[in-house]
């Protein structure tokens, strides 16, 4: 099983979520993070203009069985894309075990 962590634009979230549902990826968790990267955002506050690379992003954590890996990544790559600096990243890592608390099921079946 794999964990896919995707850091995307907040404004792309709804699209990504809908697209994931299309490919039967119906389970994940997300939260908002601040991303530091290449993109800069212009601000003004009480007469000081400044630009910051600390930009709001949404962080998706999706644990999938190996067979779902590719479609999940493809879907995110496609729908989170704008082509502008700041589209975000996807990180993949291994998960050694998973449990569903409700049933105490282990392994792939706990992800369905």
């Amino acid at each position: 099983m794999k964990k896919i962590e995707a850091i995307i634009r907040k404004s792309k979230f709804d699209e990504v979520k809908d697209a994931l549902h299309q490919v039967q990826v119906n389970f994940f968790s997300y939260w908002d993070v601040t991303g530091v990267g290449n993109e800069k955002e212009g601000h003004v506050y009480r007469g000081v203009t400044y630009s910051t690379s600390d930009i709001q992003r949404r962080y998706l954590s999706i644990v999938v069985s190996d067979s779902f890996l590719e479609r999940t990544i493809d879907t995110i790559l496609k729908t989170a894309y704008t082509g502008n600096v700041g589209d975000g990243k996807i990180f993949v890592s291994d998960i050694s075990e998973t449990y569903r608390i409700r049933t105490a099921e282990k392994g792939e079946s706990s992800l369905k």
Partner: protein
Amino acid sequence: MENSLFTANNIWMMICTGLVFIMHLGFSFLEIGLTRQKNTINILFKNMFIICAGLVLYALIGFGLMYPGEFNGVLGFGGLGLNLPGNGLTAEYASGGYTYWTDFLFQGMFAATAATIVSGAVAERVKLESFILFTIIYVGLIYPIAGSWQWGGGFLSEMGFYDFAGSTLVHSVGGWAALIAVYLLGPRIGKFSESGKVGAIPGHNLPLATAGVLILWLGWFGFNGGSVLSADPAATSLVLVTTSLAAAAGGISGFLFAYIRYKKYDLTMFLNGVLGGLVGITAGADQMGITDSLVIGLLAGVIVVLGVALIDKLKLDDPVGAIAVHLICGIFGTLAVGIFGAKAGWEQFVHQLVGVGLIGLFCCVSAFIILFALKKTLGLRVSKEEEVEGLDLHEHGMTAYPDFRLD
């Protein structure tokens, strides 16, 4: 008139002026509370603009347009700027009710309200510059002209139309423009799904929305109480009672009716019910008895719930419910003067109907012309990208709670 009575009257009118002023805080809280966080700065900016520009415009031209003195009943102009009449600071000016300055300021605070109503309805997608231009024209010209027909002594008042404090002249005037604007703008992304399902786009701060409603209720003491145009104890105190009872009844029937329909105690419908009751009583606040006010409030509470559902069904997207509250309840309240209370009667009802219709026609046509022209030139709506990312960052380079952290 004795100086002391004149002084007392004028005090009351100044207090009412302050109370109507603070309604702008109420509207601001209500609007930002019911909309998403990413557009908060934009809404606050619009509201600050409305109150500031509204007052200045009303000083420059609005007051002269709305109270032109002797005129043809349709369009007159008392002159640019504020021209203190000789007796403007004496009891002669307005039967001892207030001075010329008080008169201007009280009316000026009203003027801005009409634009505020629109502001809520177009929130989260309107282009700031276009809204600013619309506000200038609507508050500077349309509102005072409509107002002159009745309160300026124009043809509607001649005819016998009655609108005590502005169910039609303020709330519907704002509400019609809101309707046109919402229609021309189209719904926010996500409000109606492709399959036509109505979505919910919850706001970001319901405590502030609730505070807004309580502040508006207080402000209505001045809005209606000041419309007596003196501190006459019998009239003012009656108006405060009818206003409060209608608000209370509206809230109760609003939440109960929503409970029956949706099986939840919906705070937002409670709030809308209170506002519906307030708008509904406004046209006849001085003509109603206790039972009338309660009935008007109860009906308004139900109407507002149905109205919100209707607007949704028409695929119109009004984030704060301005059309249901201000337009629909405004019409209901105006007609209610012909149905309940001291003026009830068929003839009055017809007058009310005519007034509602003519003001509606004038407002719709002029709002359409202004907004359509803006749509074809500057554009009314922000880009899709801006709408999704939020107007705050794009137009203002600022977010509403930049340093907010969780503990």
